[in-house]
């Protein structure tokens, strides 16, 4: 349908990322002349973006089209037109809101948290770039444009994780994040090219059409979907590509909040959700998606149980929740996954900002065993953190309970009892580690060195309070309110009205509460002795505390396989390419020059004679040829 009759704000929604991208340029070039080194520009840009989101949302809801689509031509290669375009539908509008909102809060929070940092301007510039690329990613209508934004997101995360580049671990973590996601990105790129080869278009809707009409043969489709999912695994930190996410904690804490809530890790989930119609044509790949999701969900939540660093606990919690989203996506549950993405994004941003507030008060202490009893010193942080933890643990009636419930329903409908029961088991663990971190940090006895600890200032607590209120009430969007709005999943996908299976909800709530109870028994009442369990199963504990030895395995592969291979190749390069190929050809020219230069006498009559003889010879040949 032509979009000419639409005179709304939707055609201009490209301004939302463009504003942030523009503020990046402004801050980089003129930041030092601006108040707060340009932070205001970045915050203003994202605020206007967030405001515009509401107008775009109203515009979209008042129209009768399910989606709107605008393109401009970029380059034409042969008969292929490559375009810049935006695609506004309910999926992208939800992501748009989440990203701009969380970015806005994180940037406001950073004003206080990063105060006095010598590179404040650069920090906000990269923040703006990061937000802009993520906003572009969710708006992109074709896969090439999406890939472009996808790489920019990777760049933004690299710059932000390595923001404190004087610290060697931060540099290592930034490199690790970049390279690990890079491996997946290569898969994504190949997958996109395969799809383009099969359909001749990068346009998402056109590829959908081609695939649904059977224009892409099954083998190609399967291969490209697996490769695309590899990209999503890298960005969304799915097992075994999850290793970069915990290390990414070396960056400033607000950055962690942003990466874990709205940008970067959300990109993979969004990609799979966006391309779900393609994934649905390849049930095998879809099963793989949910299997990877399930594995990630369990393995990461087990690791979250044994970590000591509060940010790492939250990081593993993020990985496990991303696994949950993938699990749901793999079971045709795009709506439930995006619902969980939103709820998790709000709660996890809250938790990370809370952790940042704790670190702010405790001089950057992150070990939870050195904290304790903080609820008296930092009441606002404590309450908001507890709300976030409860929401993610899945305690009714907070947001996490409803989104988890929707995912369980999807599991029940599409993946059967085995997946459902494993998921339910992992829910206990996820509420257990949330209980653990909450109890150890905020309850129990106060440590002696905590006298100077104080509540953080308003710029830090205000985003916490806003996010906590949202985490408290975000569950309401799950319900069916009017005849037009029949639950969030119906809003998103147009099917599956809101419904509850009472027994399933009660079961999941009971399991969550049992996790809380166990945590309470272990870490508050000390009824169950963890030390005893550790002593009894030392192997299992070592296995967990060493993160399944996956990092060791990767290090071993890098040292023993890649570097060893590299050394062999280097020998070949030194001897064959360098010595024989380059140096030898150069020196042979040199030697021949040394020899041949004696042909030049410098005597004029030698040259003259040669010329004269040459002419005589030419004449002779000419004369012979003529006769």
């Amino acid at each position, binding site marked *: 349908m032509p979009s000419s009759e639409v005179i709304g704000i939707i055609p201009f929604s490209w301004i939302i990322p463009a504003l942030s991208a523009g503020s990046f340029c402004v801050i980089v070039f003129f930041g030092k002349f601006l108040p707060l080194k340009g932070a205001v520009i970045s915050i203003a840009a994202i605020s206007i973006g967030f405001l515009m989101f509401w107008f775009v949302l109203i515009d979209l809801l008042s129209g009768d089209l399910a989606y709107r689509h605008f393109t401009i031509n970029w380059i034409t290669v042969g008969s292929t037109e490559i375009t810049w375009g935006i695609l506004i539908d309910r999926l992208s509008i939800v992501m748009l809101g989440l990203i701009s909102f969380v970015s806005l809060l994180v940037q406001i929070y950073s004003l206080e948290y990063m105060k006095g940092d010598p590179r404040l301007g650069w920090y906000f510039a990269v923040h703006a770039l990061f937000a802009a690329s993520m906003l572009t990613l969710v708006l992109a209508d074709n896969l090439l444009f999406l890939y472009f934004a996808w790489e920019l997101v990777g760049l933004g995360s690299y710059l932000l994780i390595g923001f404190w580049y004087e610290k060697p671990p931060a540099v290592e973590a930034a490199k690790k994040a970049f390279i690990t996601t890079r491996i997946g990105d290569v898969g994504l790129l190949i997958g996109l090219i395969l799809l383009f080869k099969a359909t001749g278009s990068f346009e998402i809707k056109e590829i959908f059409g081609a695939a649904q009409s059977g224009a892409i043969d099954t083998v190609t489709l399967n291969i490209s979907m697996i490769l695309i999912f590899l990209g999503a695994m890298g960005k969304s930190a799915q097992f075994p590509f999850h290793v970069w996410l915990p290390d990414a904690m070396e960056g400033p804490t607000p950055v962690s909040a942003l990466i874990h809530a709205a940008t970067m890790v959300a990109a993979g989930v969004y990609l799979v959700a966006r391309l779900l119609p393609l994934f649905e044509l390849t049930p095998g790949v879809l099963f793989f998606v949910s299997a990877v999701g399930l594995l990630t969900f369990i393995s990461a939540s087990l690791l979250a149980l044994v970590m000591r660093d509060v940010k790492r606990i939250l990081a593993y919690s993020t990985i496990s929740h991303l696994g949950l989203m993938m699990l749901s996506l793999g079971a045709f549950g795009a709506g439930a996954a995006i619902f969980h993405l939103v709820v998790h994004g709000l709660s996890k941003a809250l938790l990370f900002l809370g952790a940042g507030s704790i670190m702010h008060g405790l001089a950057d202490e992150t070990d939870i065993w050195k904290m304790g009893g903080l609820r008296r010193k930092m009441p606002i942080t404590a309450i908001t953190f507890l709300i976030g933890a409860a929401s993610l643990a899945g305690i009714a009636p907070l947001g996490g309970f409803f989104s988890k419930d929707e995912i369980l329903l999807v599991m029940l409908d599409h993946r059967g009892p085995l997946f459902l029961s494993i998921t339910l088991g992992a829910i206990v663990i996820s509420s257990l580690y949330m209980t653990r971190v909450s109890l150890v940090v905020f309850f129990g006895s106060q440590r002696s060195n905590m006298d100077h600890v104080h509540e953080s200032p308003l710029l830090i607590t205000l985003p916490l309070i806003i996010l906590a209120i949202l985490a408290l009430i975000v569950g309401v969007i799950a319900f069916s309110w009017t005849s037009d709005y029949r639950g969030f999943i119906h809003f998103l996908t147009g099917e599956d009205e809101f419904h509850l299976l009472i027994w399933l909800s009660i079961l999941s709530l009971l399991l969550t509460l049992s996790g809380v109870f166990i945590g309470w028994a272990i870490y508050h009442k000390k009824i169950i002795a963890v030390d005893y369990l550790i002593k009894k199963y030392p192997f299992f504990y070592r296995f967990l505390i060493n993160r399944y030895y996956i990092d060791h395995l990767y290090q071993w592969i890098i040292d023993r396989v890649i570097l060893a291979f590299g050394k062999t190749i280097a020998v070949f390069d030194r001897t064959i390419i360098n010595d024989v190929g380059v140096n030898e050809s150069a020196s042979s020219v040199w030697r021949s020059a040394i020899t041949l*230069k004696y042909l*030049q*006498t*410098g*005597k*004029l*009559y030698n040259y*003259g*004679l040669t010329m*004269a003889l040459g002419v005589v010879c030419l004449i002779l040949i000419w004369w012979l040829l003529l006769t």
Partner: protein
Amino acid sequence: MELAHFQLVAAALFSIGLYGVLARKSAVLILMSIELMLNAVNINLIGYAAFMDFTVDQRALGQVLVIFVITIAAAELALAVAIILRLYRNRSSVNVDEIDTMKW
């Protein structure tokens, strides 16, 4: 008088000039030999213009060419003598055997 006489004189002059260029060591003599070779060509041109079965225009063309060659030879001579003079100032010699700094 016919064309062959002109050609013979021209060939003789050219050969003498060529010999001079190749055999002399003095730059001035080489220059004079080059002039000889140029004039041999001139005689050839005049001979052809006069004795071939040409129209008036074509005959005139041959003579005009000779005028051109003489003009250019004069200009060239001025240049070459200037170069030889500079050479003599720098090296106190015009022996071409000694002028081989561009060799290697």
